């Protein structure tokens, strides 16, 4: 606040007249400052966490690249860190490929179903139907991933794939893992897309209806394109979630990284590899153990980039409608 120009005559209160309004260093005022400091410290924890993640990963990753040439890592197509002698190989591409491949399969399931569900809920469903279906989607979103992994291994593979569809898959296969991965991200895609669709102003719809368009035309030609950047954000968020998912692949996808498109055999993503290595009995100082950090760092960077892309699309969407 701008200080007032003290005019002669106004200053300390006349004796016995005015009240004392001055600042005092009371316990209350000191504790106000202390509290503010504590609150700020809590907020800073988030920064400390990120720094912690980056440093812990970076440190050990650098150590790893002291022992494994970075070129071998980034461009090698053979991932076999536990093999002895000459067979030992640290090419990360199979893991990266598998990660994106599984994510792709998952999105193949989640995107059409998720978008359809979102469009239905946002544009077609009556309030009563919405009230029943939305919570169910939320329940689906709340299922722990280990349960989904169990489901993939003990039901999807034997009952759906083998018995029902007659596909010859191994016990651990990429198809079951990919499908269930899709079920995992379906609620995310559905709910973010539904938010995006709902944010499209009614005026746009009414304008189209007023021209005699059918509901289908309004939805597909007006609302959907208008919500497009929000929908893309939903897809990228879903992809980001799928990329980072660990346990479904760990349980249902097996333990052999495979640089192949064969879905009937095992697939291992970066996250699944990290978890599996940690479960094993590998000495913590060894190069094999350091792979956890190197792969973890690679995974971290990929999800960060995906997240930044998603935020970019969300911003673009908000700019238009808010």
């Amino acid at each position, binding site marked *: 606040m701008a200080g007032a120009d003290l*005019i002669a005559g106004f200053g300390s209160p006349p004796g016995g007249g005015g009240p004392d309004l001055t600042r005092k260093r009371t316990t209350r005022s000191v504790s106000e400052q202390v509290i503010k400091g504590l609150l700020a410290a809590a907020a800073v924890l988030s920064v400390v966490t990120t720094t912690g993640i980056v440093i812990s990963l970076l440190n050990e990753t650098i150590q790893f690249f002291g022992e494994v040439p970075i070129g071998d890592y980034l461009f090698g197509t053979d991932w076999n860190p536990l093999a002895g002698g000459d067979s030992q190989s640290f090419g990360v591409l199979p893991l990266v490929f598998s990660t994106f491949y599984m994510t792709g399969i998952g999105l193949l399931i989640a995107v059409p179903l998720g978008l359809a569900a979102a469009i239905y809920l946002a544009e077609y469903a009556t309030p009563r139907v919405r009230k029943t279906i939305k919570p169910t989607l939320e329940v689906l979103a709340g299922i722990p991933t280990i349960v989904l992994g169990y489901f993939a291994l003990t039901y999807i593979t034997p009952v759906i794939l083998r018995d029902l569809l007659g596909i010859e898959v191994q016990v651990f296969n990429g198809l079951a893992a990919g499908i269930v991965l899709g079920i995992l991200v379906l609620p995310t895609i559905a709910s973010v897309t539904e938010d995006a669709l709902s944010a499209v102003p009614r005026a746009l719809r009414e304008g189209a209806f007023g021209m005699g368009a059918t509901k289908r035309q309004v939805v597909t030609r007006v609302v959907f394109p208008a919500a497009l950047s929000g929908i893309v954000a939903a897809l990228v968020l879903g992809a980001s979630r799928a990329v980072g998912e660990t346990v479904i692949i760990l349980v249902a996808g097996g333990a052999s990284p495979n640089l192949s498109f064969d879905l009937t055999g095992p697939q291992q993503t970066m996250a699944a590899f990290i978890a599996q290595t940690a479960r094993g009995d590998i000495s913590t100082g060894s190069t094999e153990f350091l792979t956890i950090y190197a792969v973890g760092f690679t995974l971290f960077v990929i999800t960060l980039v995906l997240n930044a892309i998603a935020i970019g699309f969300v911003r673009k969407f908000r700019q238009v409608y808010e």
Partner: protein
Amino acid sequence: MSETPNTDVAAEVPRQEREASGINVASGLREEPAAVDTSTPKETIFSLNDVGVQYGGVPAVEDVTFDMFKNEITAYIGPSGCGKSTLIRCLNRMNDLIPGATVTGTIAYHGQDLYASNIDPVQVRKRIGMVFQKPNPFPKSIFENIAFGPRVLGMKGNMHEIVERALRRAALWDEVKDRLKHNAFGMSGGQQQRLCIARCLAIEPDVILMDEPASALDPISTGAIEELMLELKENFSIVIVTHNMQQAARVSDRTAFFNVTKVEEGKRVGALVEFNPTHKVFTNPDDKRTEDYVSGKFG
């Protein structure tokens, strides 16, 4: 047949004739505002000198110089955008809450500069209370609403007595004495506003600021609030902002008329036009603009 438009009729009739016949310049007034006794010197509570308020550098109100006195009701009137609410919020440092708000000039309270660097706004607000336009009771019981102020201020004494006294002073005790534990949100608008007044009274302030306290209420509740103000005047000093001229004429001792004096960068800037005993402002104002406003020519 006069060719002058209707709005000039009042100007054509000589002023003395109008006063004699009881027709006031302020259209629609039924009674004349009581003349306030300006002969005996009153204790000054606020003394404003060349006060201005800016938001982010853009002035909202400027050129304000006048005094307010103890145990009186001072009304601020004027068209919207003239800065009356802005000014009243300076009196208890509530403008501090708005980032980018600055105050120039001097606002003295009992001789002390309210904006001196060593003044604690929290202490200021303990003595200068405020009632807002829209009643804002806390989502708690009636009792807890009243007790909140005394508790945080560390007032000693029996809380039940303090609450009862405040509610009696606000003419609310009889209506709520059996439902003190009920949630305040269940009250009507008029009751809620009297609750807010009682809440303010409970901390035993020196001054009560009221920013359009009855504008959100129905006429009957408005009447109750106005009666209350006249009762409270005996023990407190009251400053009220109102867009209702008749209300100002009914309750206030002195009236300050503000007007929009210019438009800067699309924002309106207000200033004090006239400050006089209410009776004078509504029957024989010094400034033509005041006369135009109270006679309904604009605003």
